[in-house]
């Protein structure tokens, strides 16, 4: 092993401490915008690097762990890095850098108020996201899950208008309701039945646990993780679109919804385990709930004229893919789900970046007004096109691979109906995404807009450039991602 300046354990703790320190410094230098934003960028980069250090340890099957101490006698607050969490942490910390660059352009270009609060809450949200990624048991995960909800609330309510407050209220109430009413009792019940909440590959329930109880537990978990936005608990995501666009990027790509599906995957793989999951009749119910969620939200997306609303419903549908893959409980599907977290992150963040760029440069939010915009903003619209391809799952973008594995998974388990759902949904994706860049490039410009339009500020374009490159790079070089994802299934084989 090559020489590293710090141990893996320290790197893990540092990756969580750095965002906190960043938040503190941002608060301290809140009245000096240039310094403040330099601090955020430096903090974000340092965070990403310390997460990156951990990759080597994870690939050697030697992820570090750390115990903070007992939160409740017998239940520790504990971190442990494993491949799935590693992947999530890498995405979140990398996209934090990009989103920060973008946010600097957006917040200044839009002359938003309370920018210091914005950057503080953003840094806190990243810290808690890493906490979710590295959590070693359900209790720790829950602690950071709730903290993430709280830290993102001020971001959603950022504008302070009646509309923003209402949106934020819905955001908070649905996320807290699901977590308090379903998620928490599910965790306590798990503790009651299994005697532990520590994650272990292949599941933690003793063999004699009743299937009825486990089935109810599964349903509680699936709906309790409200951040995964499984219908009918999805309303918070469209409501949250009142937030500034960098926040939407945080919600849809970097942290929040990803934390949701990550939690679902983690619970399926590390709490239930594939073998147990396939025996539960409740699993089949939830599979079809996820399928319905995919189709319905795609259909709703088509009807949306507001660009961010359309993207929000598209996210709900894509989250359904990950949940579906996790529930299929078969190697290819698990790999597909894991990869889809990354693919969707890059694709959706590109689309939201574009939506924000259009808003800052042209003050347009409705799709019907965007006809002919491609002439003034060719780069933005091209980025939108590539991002759309990745969401649909077409080459040359990363989304191709994850959808491939997910379809393979549904085919292998004989769920032909679900296979059909995935195919129809892909067609629907085409129907609601591709017309937007097409009309922008080939449509006639609306009469009214004679004003000279140009591209958004350069930091925003730079950020878009990186994520578009990411979408394509993930198509050309999916190997590292695939290896990380398949470690989950290989270990399972070794252990099982």
């Amino acid at each position: 092993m090559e020489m590293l300046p710090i141990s893996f354990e320290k790197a893990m703790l540092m990756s969580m401490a750095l965002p906190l320190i960043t938040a503190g410094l941002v608060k301290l230098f809140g009245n000096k915008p240039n310094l403040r934003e330099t601090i955020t960028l430096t903090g974000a980069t340092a965070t990403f690097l310390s997460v990156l250090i951990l990759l080597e340890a994870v690939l050697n099957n030697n992820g570090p762990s750390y115990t903070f101490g007992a939160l409740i006698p017998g239940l520790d607050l504990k971190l442990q890095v494993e491949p799935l969490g590693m992947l999530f942490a890498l995405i979140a910390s990398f996209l934090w850098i990009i989103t920060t660059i973008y946010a600097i352009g957006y917040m200044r270009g839009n002359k938003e108020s309370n920018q210091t609060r914005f950057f503080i809450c953003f840094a806190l949200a990243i810290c808690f996201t890493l906490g979710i990624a590295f959590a070693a048991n359900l209790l720790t995960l829950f602690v950071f899950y709730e903290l993430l909800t709280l830290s993102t609330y001020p971001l959603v309510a950022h504008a302070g208008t009646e509309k923003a407050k209402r949106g934020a209220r819905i955001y908070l109430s649905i996320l807290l309701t699901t977590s308090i009413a379903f998620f928490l009792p599910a965790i306590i019940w798990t503790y009651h039945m299994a005697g532990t909440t520590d994650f272990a590959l292949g599941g933690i329930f003793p063999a004699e646990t009743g299937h009825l109880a486990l089935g109810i537990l599964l349903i509680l978990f699936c709906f309790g993780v409200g951040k995964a936005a499984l219908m009918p608990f999805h309303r918070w995501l469209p409501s949250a679109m009142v937030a500034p666009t960098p926040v939407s990027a945080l919600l849809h790509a970097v942290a929040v919804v990803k934390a949701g599906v990550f939690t679902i995957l983690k619970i399926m793989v590390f709490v239930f385990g594939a073998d147990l999951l396939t025996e539960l009749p409740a699993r089949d119910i939830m599979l079809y709930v996820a399928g319905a969620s995919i189709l319905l939200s795609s259909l709703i997306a088509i009807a949306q004229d507001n660009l961010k609303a359309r993207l929000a419903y598209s996210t709900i549908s894509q989250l359904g893919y990950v949940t579906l893959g996790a529930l299929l409980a078969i190697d290819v599907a698990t790999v597909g789900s894991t990869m889809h977290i990354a693919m969707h992150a890059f694709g959706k963040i590109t689309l939201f970046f574009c939506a924000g760029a259009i808003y800052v440069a042209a003050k347009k939010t409705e799709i019907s007004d965007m006809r002919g915009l491609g002439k003034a903003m060719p780069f933005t619209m091209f980025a939108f096109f590539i991002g759309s391809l990745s969401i649909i799952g077409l080459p040359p973008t990363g989304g191709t691979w994850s959808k491939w594995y997910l379809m393979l998974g549904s085919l292998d388990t004989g769920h032909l109906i679900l296979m059909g759902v995935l195919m129809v949904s892909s067609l629907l994706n085409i129907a609601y995404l591709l017309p937007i860049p097409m009309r922008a490039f080939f449509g006639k410009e609306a009469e009214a807009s004679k004003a000279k339009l140009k591209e958004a500020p350069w930091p925003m374009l730079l950020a878009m450039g990186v994520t578009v490159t990411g979408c394509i790079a993930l198509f050309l070089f999916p190997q590292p991602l695939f290896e990380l994802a398949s470690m989950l299934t290989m270990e399972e084989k070794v252990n099982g």
Partner: protein
Amino acid sequence: MMNLLLDDLPALQVMLPLLCAPLCFILRIKGLPWLIAFVTSILTFAVSFMLFNQVADGDILSYAMGGWAPPWGIEYRVDRLNSFFMLLISGIGVVALLFARKSVDSEIIACKQSIFYSAFMLCLAGLLGILITGDAFNVFVFLEISALSSYVLISFGQDRRALTATFQYLIMGTIGATMILIGLGFMYMMTGTLNMADLATRLPEVMNTNTIRTAFAFIVIGASIKLALFPLHIWLPNAYSYAPSVVTVFLAATSTKVALYVLLRFVFTVFGAEFAFGEMPLQHILMFMAVLAVLTGSLCAVFQTNIKHVLAYSSIGQIGYMVIGVALLTTTGLAAGILHVFNHAIMKACLFLAIGCVYYRHGSARIEDFKGIGKTMPWTMAAFVIGGLGLIGMPLTVGFISKWYLVIAAMEQGAIGAVTISIILIGSLLAVAYVWRIVEVAYFNEPTKEKAKIKEAPLALLIPTWIMALATIYFGIKTDFSVIAATNAATTLMGAK
């Protein structure tokens, strides 16, 4: 000398604040009554701490007042249950008095302050007396001392409605105390003794009489009035809302808790769980009332415009949680209930202290006053948010720990437990509604013009507020102290019979 004092710790626990009261009254020099009261409260806390440590291993400390051996004389009896409560009450006393200096200066005219502090110390002495005594009639005496002094304390409120609130409390409190007295009289009639331990051994012989059943009913209802258990809670919201800020802090964190102790002591130690829950349908009654308390209390809190009212109704709901724990009738349930007594006292004190800071600057605590307060009084509001998160039961606060143990305890009960769990969680969701309404106004509304110039509360008020805010987090992370103490208290109680 030192040894002598150490032996007399149980007596000192009550005597210190009791003797301090006339001292406060006599020495009417500006600032002196406060100083005396504050120093005494610290000493009282130190005594509680030593007593707590002395009985931590499960010993029972029996102290014969005036050297008259029980059951003839008055016995002070310290065990793991009441030592935990005394530690809590005297601790809250210290924090409340720390807050009192500035707050009382602004709310009560100088010439009446010495009366105020002597009433405060009498109230503290009364509450500690109820906890420590092993004599049933003595409980009544101290109950009256604490009640009468708290009527005085509440009537000091600036708002004229404080007087009607006091009167309402006086009527209800007197009914409650009288019921307890009648119950005690019946018991004395049948057994000829008033010492609790003695009562516990003599009662089984006469258990099957209607007199004892009636006595039981009187005592339970009397204690429930003091406890403000739904539907006997009507005195509480106004009493809390119109009292001076520091009185609200102190009473909200202590008086209902002590009433719960009285209930526990009589039901488990004197009558015995077998009689109370086997022969009498107390479990069902308590559970039913507790569930209604959680639902109605929390629901009422959502619709109040005076923030003190919001918190007062929330207290009624939270008392429901404690009683749910008790009514589960297992050691885990009881431990969860007692744990919530401790945790709720801390977070409610934190919240009322924050409200006290707001009241100090704004002169009222209506929801309009909270507009933009997140900007003008950031530290006060941050403490309020921490306390509020505790009420919701967010992880890393004390509220989460209470909820965790209550749900675990309910889970052991099977099907009935499932209903209980859903009530606990609905209460928690309602807490989100009533807490977040305030948070939203505070952070996302602009202050009105004349309120925009209002400054942060002075340090003298912020320090006690933040002591409780940090305690809300500290005891939500380092839980071994409170969990072990509550579990020990519950085992003591369950093992009593």
